[in-house]
């Protein structure tokens, strides 16, 4: 009986935890808030795993909020893609929160509540099947991210937060305009219903829907940081605290997820005049984003900035691969998405502890003192580099190999091969340079005596070991992402599962 409510539990748990964490909790509130936060993250993880298992076994779950049936009420649609993304969020959030509990949360007030709201917003965005509800969850995650980005204060952080907030407010306005346009032409907000209505449009109406669709691409482009709209990302991610940046590793993926969802379901294979609306654009923008990321990496003089550009490179790779619009393309893109989210999260945390233990030189790529736990970080850096560059034996290698394999034998395929291999070479060069400067070329004399707590290293280690996990279980994971891609591309039966009146029952006619 309770299983039917499984769909909404990963949203409700962080929500109620955050509300509880906002209570005063006496003189020393932090330990209680930490305990609540950790319990919530563990529970979310458990339920996200159960959800994935359930969806995989019994097919898509549709949860009608307030029991209003689909085209009229808001529904949560938990298909395989949503379940995968929710689990990924929960898997990333737990180690990041553990890391944050080592005094990172004392830098500003209400870190824990904001963290939980952020997780709730991200999971909600993955779960919803309604376009306006997607906007609302975007706002939830953005509002908490505005707070988190300010965490710790300092004037550079304040300014980059101002840029981030203003840009995203513009994005939200654009989101509303495009949702309005789509509603005006299709008369629905439910994504599955909209997909059917969009397929019936022609002439002027189709042109309007096209305008709405492209505006939506701009909105998701801001979130995903694709080429002309990415300028906020390097500054924002490199000035905020490491723990927040690590959590934000999933934020660009929310943009990527929304692009995959909207441009496969609504403007996908069945959309008649608007079939694969964004594919050509995503292809060009993806490759250009990749190239921009390469140039940015070459110019980065700070480890954290370098990781921020790695995020941009991964977004470019993902979108270019997705734009092939095939089962193999989408499946490999998702595999790479899991890998890159986890590893960039780990790298942000690693950059943060290394900056702390290096003292004055922080995360700048210059010769500095030895760190207190020098060897541990050296090994972690090596593992993370191997994974993110894509050298065997870790998951980056498997991911990149699959992408190269999935690229069609055509001009576009060759372009992807070329840029991706150049990107890999540049990553190799930059990570080697960073490693040699920060780890090998250290100053003579005794190491810095500031030592980060053990738990922080464990948290990073857990994230890194996920890469190993992803390598060992690459086959089942790939099978699952294949199933996700097949389900996504099966846009004929998909709406029938969501809208009850199409199911032969007909009671809502």
């Amino acid at each position: 009986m309770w299983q039917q409510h499984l769909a909404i539990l990963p949203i409700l748990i962080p929500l109620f935890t955050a509300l509880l964490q906002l209570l005063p909790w006496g003189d020393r509130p932090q330990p209680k808030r930490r305990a609540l936060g950790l319990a919530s993250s563990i529970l979310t993880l458990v339920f996200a795993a159960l959800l994935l298992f359930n969806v995989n076994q019994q097919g898509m779950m549709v949860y009608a909020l307030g029991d209003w049936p689909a085209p009229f009420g808001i529904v949560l649609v938990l298909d395989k893609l949503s379940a995968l993304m929710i689990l990924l969020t929960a898997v990333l959030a737990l180690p990041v929160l553990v890391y944050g509990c080592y005094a990172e949360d004392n830098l500003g007030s209400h870190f824990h509540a904001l963290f939980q709201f952020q997780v709730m917003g991200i999971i909600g965005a993955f779960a919803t099947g309604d376009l306006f509800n997607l906007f609302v969850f975007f706002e939830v995650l953005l509002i908490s991210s505005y707070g988190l980005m300010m965490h710790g204060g300092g004037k550079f952080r304040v300014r980059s937060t101002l840029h981030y907030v203003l840009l995203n407010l513009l994005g939200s306005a654009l989101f509303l305009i495009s949702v309005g346009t789509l509603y005006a032409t299709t008369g629905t907000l439910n994504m599955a219903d909209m997909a059917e209505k969009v397929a019936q449009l022609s002439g002027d109406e189709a042109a309007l829907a096209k305008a709405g669709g492209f505006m939506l691409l701009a909105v998701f482009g801001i979130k995903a940081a694709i080429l002309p709209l990415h300028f906020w990302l390097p500054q924002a991610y490199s000035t905020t605290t490491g723990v927040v940046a690590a959590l934000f590793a999933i934020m660009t993926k929310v943009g990527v997820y929304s692009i995959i969802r909207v441009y496969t379901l609504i403007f996908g294979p069945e959309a008649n005049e608007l079939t694969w609306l964004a594919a050509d654009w995503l292809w060009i923008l993806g490759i250009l984003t990749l190239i921009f990321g390469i140039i940015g990496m070459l110019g980065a003089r700070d480890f954290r900035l370098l990781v921020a550009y790695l995020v941009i490179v991964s977004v470019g790779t993902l979108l270019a691969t997705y734009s092939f619009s095939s089962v193999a393309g989408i499946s490999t893109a998702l595999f790479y998405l899991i890998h890159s989210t986890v590893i960039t999260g780990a790298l942000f945390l690693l950059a943060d502890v290394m900056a702390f233990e290096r003292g004055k030189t922080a995360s700048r790529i210059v010769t500095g003192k030895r760190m207190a736990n020098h060897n541990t970080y050296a090994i972690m850096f090596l593992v993370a580099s191997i994974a993110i560059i894509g050298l065997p034996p870790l998951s980056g290698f498997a991911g990149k190999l699959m992408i190269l394999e999935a690229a069609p034998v055509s001009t576009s395929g060759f372009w992807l091969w070329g840029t991706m291999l150049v990107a890999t070479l540049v990553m190799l060069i930059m990570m080697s340079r960073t490693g040699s400067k920060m780890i090998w070329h250290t100053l003579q004399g005794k190491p810095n005596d500031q030592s980060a707590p053990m738990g922080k290293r464990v948290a990073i280690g857990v994230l890194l070991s996920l890469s190993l996990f992803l390598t060992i279980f690459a086959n089942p994971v790939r099978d699952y992402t294949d199933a996700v891609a097949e389900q996504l591309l099966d846009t004929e039966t998909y709406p029938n599962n969501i809208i009850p009146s199409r199911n032969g029952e007909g009671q809502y006619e």
Partner: protein
Amino acid sequence: MEALFSVTVGVLTACSVFLILRGRSFPVVVGITMLSYAVNLFLFSTGRLTIDGAPILGTNTEYADPLPQALVLTAIVIGFAMTAYSVILAVRTRGEIGTDEVNEQDSGESSR
């Protein structure tokens, strides 16, 4: 009515874009607020403009689509909170950096 409505939305949007492109945080915040008004009006019109229509089916031959009204309410609430936040943030940036230029790199670099 449609012409008047669309001109209003258009002028509001144009003014807000002009303000957002300015280099100081105060005009930018005002511009974003104005843009949210334009967006709310635009959303309101997505259910088609009707006069004297109840948002309920069956009581009247003329009816108004209730959904855009609900959407506008949501958007107003969110937009209001965000305006408050961005004003506070702009004031704080002004206090911490000492200028309300959105993008002054030099003063930041030299005082480091």
